[in-house]
């Protein structure tokens, strides 16, 4: 009994710091809630750009819809990743994380979760809209939704780790893209592949399972890697 309560108290206090961080990040996002819609609007706009660039023939468009949707989502995440740790590094916030003596992987995990909640989740929820703009039929649209739900957390986690590494550089935007995009190739291939499969009538389950496997791999490892990256950047 006693040991049990102790353990619960310890676990609570273990999660106190990341909990506070997540709450604060969401509070800041709430303060700038006008901006929460931005990744979404961006995705809509890039989706609109493609027809403008490629020509309006609808048939061609639907054929590449899965790829376009994923490229769009990747870019929207990329644009928001750049600032993920930069401001904390510059204003000394990361120093405070380190001096606090709290578990750095948990803090990093909270930050990554916050990023997904404010970027990946809205994009996932908006999947049906993207799908209808690109002329995807119902089951392909559902597949896109599932693929995004599995894939965007991976994007946040892997991208966030890279962002922690580049946080100390003043204009890392593109360097970050260079680091993140190759790492995202599997997500892109399986994500777009799942939609493609659904479009051509094949079962998208295999591709979705691969995405799930990636997620299962990233969940425990990304916070550790991210913490190590933060330590390097903070020096």
């Amino acid at each position, binding site marked *: 009994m006693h040991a049990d309560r102790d353990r619960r108290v310890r676990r609570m206090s273990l999660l106190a*710091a990341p909990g506070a961080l997540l709450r*604060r990040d969401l509070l800041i996002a709430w*303060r700038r809630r006008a901006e929460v819609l931005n990744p979404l609007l961006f995705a809509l706009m890039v989706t609109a750009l493609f027809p403008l660039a490629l020509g309006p023939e609808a048939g061609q468009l639907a054929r590449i819809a899965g790829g376009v949707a994923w490229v769009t989502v990747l870019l929207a995440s990329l644009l928001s990743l750049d600032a993920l740790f930069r401001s904390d590094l510059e*204003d000394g916030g990361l120093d405070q994380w380190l*001096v606090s*003596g709290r578990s750095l992987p948990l803090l990093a995990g909270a930050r990554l979760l916050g990023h997904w909640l404010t970027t990946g989740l809205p994009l996932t929820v908006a999947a049906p809209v993207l799908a209808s703009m690109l002329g995807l039929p119902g089951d392909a649209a559902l597949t896109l939704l599932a693929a995004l739900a599995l894939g965007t957390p991976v994007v946040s986690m892997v991208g966030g780790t890279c962002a922690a590494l580049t946080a100390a550089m003043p204009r890392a935007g593109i360097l970050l893209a260079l680091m993140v995009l190759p790492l995202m190739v599997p997500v892109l291939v399986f994500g777009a592949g799942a939609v493609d499969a659904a479009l051509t009538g094949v079962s998208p389950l295999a591709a979705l399972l691969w995405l799930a496997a990636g997620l299962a791999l990233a969940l425990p490892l990304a916070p550790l890697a991210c913490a190590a990256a933060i330590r390097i950047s903070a020096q």
Partner: protein
Amino acid sequence: MRSRPGTVTVNPDLPDPAAPWIRASRLAFARGPETIFGPIDLAVEGGRVLVVEGGNGSGKTTLLRVLAGLLEPSEGTLCWLGAPREPWRPAPGELALVAHQPGLKPDLSPAEQLAFAVGLSAGRGAMPIASALAAVGLEGYEHLPVRRLSAGQRKRVTLATLLVAPANVWLLDEPYANLDRDGHALVDRLIGLQVRRGGGIVMTSHGHFAPEALPCTRIAIAGCAG
């Protein structure tokens, strides 16, 4: 157990109650080939202020960042309460750092900043946020975003974190900078508080200011001052 009244004891198994909070022996820091500060010895004792003095560029800030565990010393050993610790990483509730860049978010109010500091802290023996803000003279500014505060007001928010998130050792980098006369008295009061409860304090100074009538040890840091 260490028995200074009111001390914020977080580590239940303190290795040596008589030892200073931090002892550094032959501590040095180099960037590449160049030594920033030479091998020095120092002890951060409970109930005393360690004032690090030196000209611009002599390495005061660097020393503080080494003590905070943000930079790795190139030489020397660091002990916490007499026990060597390698690598030098603080545990919750041990250290607090007041630096030039205090990690304030422009969009959040002082009260919200402090709430986060409480979340990061060990959370014992702390003052409520509202009282801490009142104590640093920010009554009426609790809910303004930090973006709207002046340089000195921001400094006061940072000082308030020392009250809401108590720590055994305070590392203060130029705590008097940007503050007005009242602010100076405030810093003196805060330092007095920590001294009375037996905590340790390291502060840097250019020699203009120092806490009044408190037990101080001054060390000069030898650098190639500009």
